[in-house]
């Protein structure tokens, strides 16, 4: 990978014992990239972020942010980062505007016009007490705190949790603008479709180990849909099985279930020649998409996954 590197980790490990934590993470995120960090619950996403933020100390390896060591020079690193934690802290009876001033004070200054612009976009009332905020408004305040300093790197842990679709769209716009301004964005999530919309590359974690780093285009190749079809007559089982990209075919009476990779055309043509009463498709979850990787991982010895 050429050009400036925003995040680089080498053998980064945080071992909590009992196979919990993060193990031997080697990762590079280029400057200006919007990078998705995907994995099921307990995969090690938040652990990675906390290591980058110097909240927790590694058991091994190192992490650099713009060539600055996260553990040796944490203050310089955090000067470069806008951070949204997975769970918002308890600010108690402080009003939103006081929280902004408080955090702004810790960073040494506030750009009021920037804050005004962001609060308008997020439709956030800073006059209310934090404890009165809904979970969505708390998340909006977290986004405001992360974005308000125009940081070079945005580290966002599950950023859209609790946001309504309109604000999610606004968030996507904010991320796009930040990257257009030259910022690098790291978004952790367990929802592939959410990351797909804004990211250029993704890393997949499972059980504390990096399973794969791929471009969104590569992910699309991996992607499949689950299909359910109810036929009036008999299911043309052999014809379905013979189609390229169709897998996991199961027939129960007149009901067919299968997965389809890539082009849907041949299957639709086949269905067009039959009498179909119902057709449903489902987006598979992250684990289903990466099941093959996860299976391989279970068979590998520790340390050989990445």
């Amino acid at each position, binding site marked *: 990978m050429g050009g400036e590197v925003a995040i680089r980790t080498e053998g980064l490990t945080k071992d909590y014992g009992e196979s919990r934590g993060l193990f031997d993470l080697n990762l590079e995120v280029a400057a200006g990239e919007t990078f998705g960090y995907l994995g099921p619950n307990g995969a090690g996403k938040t652990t990675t972020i906390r290591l980058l933020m110097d909240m927790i100390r590694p058991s091994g390896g190192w992490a650099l942010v713009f060539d600055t060591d996260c553990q040796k020079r944490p203050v310089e690193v955090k000067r470069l980062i806008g951070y949204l934690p997975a769970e918002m802290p*308890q600010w108690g009876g402080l009003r939103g505007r006081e929280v902004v001033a408080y955090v702004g004070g810790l960073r040494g200054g506030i750009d009021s016009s920037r804050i005004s612009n962001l609060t308008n976009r997020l439709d956030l009332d800073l006059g209310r007490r934090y404890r009165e905020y809904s979970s969505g408004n708390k998340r909006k305040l977290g986004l405001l705190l992360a974005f308000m300093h125009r940081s070079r790197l945005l580290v966002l842990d599950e950023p859209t949790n609790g946001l309504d679709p309109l604000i999610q769209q606004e968030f996507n716009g904010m991320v796009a603008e930040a990257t257009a301004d030259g910022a690098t964005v790291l978004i952790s999530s367990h929802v592939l479709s959410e990351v797909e919309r804004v990211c250029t590359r993704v890393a997949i974690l499972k059980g504390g180990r990096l399973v794969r780093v791929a471009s969104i285009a590569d992910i699309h190749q991996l992607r499949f849909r689950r299909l359910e079809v109810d036929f009036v007559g008999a299911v043309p089982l052999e014809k379905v099985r013979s189609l390229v990209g169709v897998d996991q075919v199961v027939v129960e009476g007149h009901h067919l279930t299968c997965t389809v990779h890539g082009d849907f055309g041949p299957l639709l043509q086949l269905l067009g020649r039959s009498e179909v009463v119902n057709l449903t498709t489902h987006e598979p979850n992250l684990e289903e998409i990466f099941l093959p990787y996860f299976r391989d991982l279970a068979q590998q010895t520790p340390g050989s996954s990445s």
Partner: protein
Amino acid sequence: MTKELMGSGPSSRPGGTAVMARYGLRSHRWTFAAVALLGFIAPYSTGMAYAAAAGTEALRAALGRETVALGPQLAYLIPLPLHPETAAGYIWWKGVTWMTLVLAAWGLAAATGIIRNEEERGLTESWLSSPLGRVNLLLQRTGAFALIALAAVAITGLGTAAGVAAGRSSVGLLALVEQGSALLGICLVSFGVGLAAAQISATRRGGLMVGGLVLIACYVLDALARVNPSLAGWAVISPFHLADLTTAVVPEGQFNGAATISLYAIAVALVVIAAASFRRRDLYSALARWPARVRGVSREPSNNPLLRFPVLRELWEQRVGLAGWVLGSMVGAGLVVSLARGAGKLLRSSPSFSGYIRAAGTSSAATAVVSSIWLSIAAMIGAAYAIASVSHWASEDSGGRLEMEIAQPWPRWKLVLERGLALTAASFAMSALGSLVVGAVAPGQGVALSAGRLVVASLLLVLLTLTFGSLGALIIARFPRAAVPGLAFVALLSFYVPLLAPLFRWPAWVLNVSLFHLYGTPLTSGLYWTGIGIMAVIVVVGFTIAVVAMRVRDVGS
């Protein structure tokens, strides 16, 4: 525990209806331990002191006379003594009556915590999402607290019996049960007040304030009625007065059944009111809300400059609570100094109490009162404030606030330093303004005080508070959840070691375990340099280790 509760509704499995009660028992275990410890030690150590001071019939009679003379001076705080020449009478007056206040404060704090703390943490919502009604939830928690309060009162009874035995006397089981029933009654009334107050306010702090004001008003009414007979008729509405009417452990004392039943009736009524309010109100809201003010939407950050500066932002955020602490210090200082002349006369006339004057290292009895009583109270206020601050630090850690602060370009050591400086500034405000009141009221009472010594005594109060704070910072760096109980234990130890050391003839160095002993009596007998040195070392070492620990520890994991 929470997972268990959330995963399975309390009534969804056999025996599940008691889940909330079991959780209630568990949630009060630390405060129970502290109250029970105090409940045992207070009467027992008083019994030991009695045994040491009243070894002969003549000494017992003299102690009784002097205590009867001292009683009216303290009537604003506790009931008048009854048969203080006996071990049981002395223990009741000096050991058991104070437990009324401790149990009342515990009941109030526990109830507001159950309602508001757990609601703010989202626990109540989780529990109510299971097939558990609000009234059922409240009743189970009340039952659990009643059980645990009963255990604490029983231990107080044990301490009383042990204390009386140490005074070479005895007290009947029935008398202990009767006395205990009054103590339990006041504890449950305070719990009920807390439950009801927490329905009125949407925050725990608000609930504590409303409930605290109600209880203080009742307590003051009882106290005023003791010194002003014209108010005696009104005193019956005070639960503290109803509790005071039972003096069963005192020889020839009485058990006032009607008053005790009234206490339980009041407690039940308060729980019913609280339950009805809880059923009616919205979760996360007060029972009645002020109509929302029409105001525009705010999109701007606060212009408050205090929020932008270290230390000042901490103090500003705690301003309401801090104002209460400062006001409490000033009122306490004024009250003690205004009583100093009368108490001083008593001390001078009494052979037993003249030891206090000698111990204070002064020839002025009134000065001795200010030195030994006010500065002791001020030291305890400082310790309590340090514990409250450490509790705030611990909640910053567990509530994710520390994580957010560390995520900013702000070194970790500065956060520890900021906490220490905020504690210094707050304790300075408390001790300085308290001493200012002492300095202003003393001349009017004929109490001669050296201004220089008063200033030094005030500054040493700051050092003492910081010593507690540094120990808290030290514990919190490794065991955040143990910080408050750990520091409370240090405070209790510091309080009791100077009382118990002479009784058990412990070596002199043991006294230095007590932080209150290290403070000395700077107003009268000069500076205790060894103590000052030890406190300074604790502060420096404590905060240094806290800084180092904060730098290396994991946050938010």
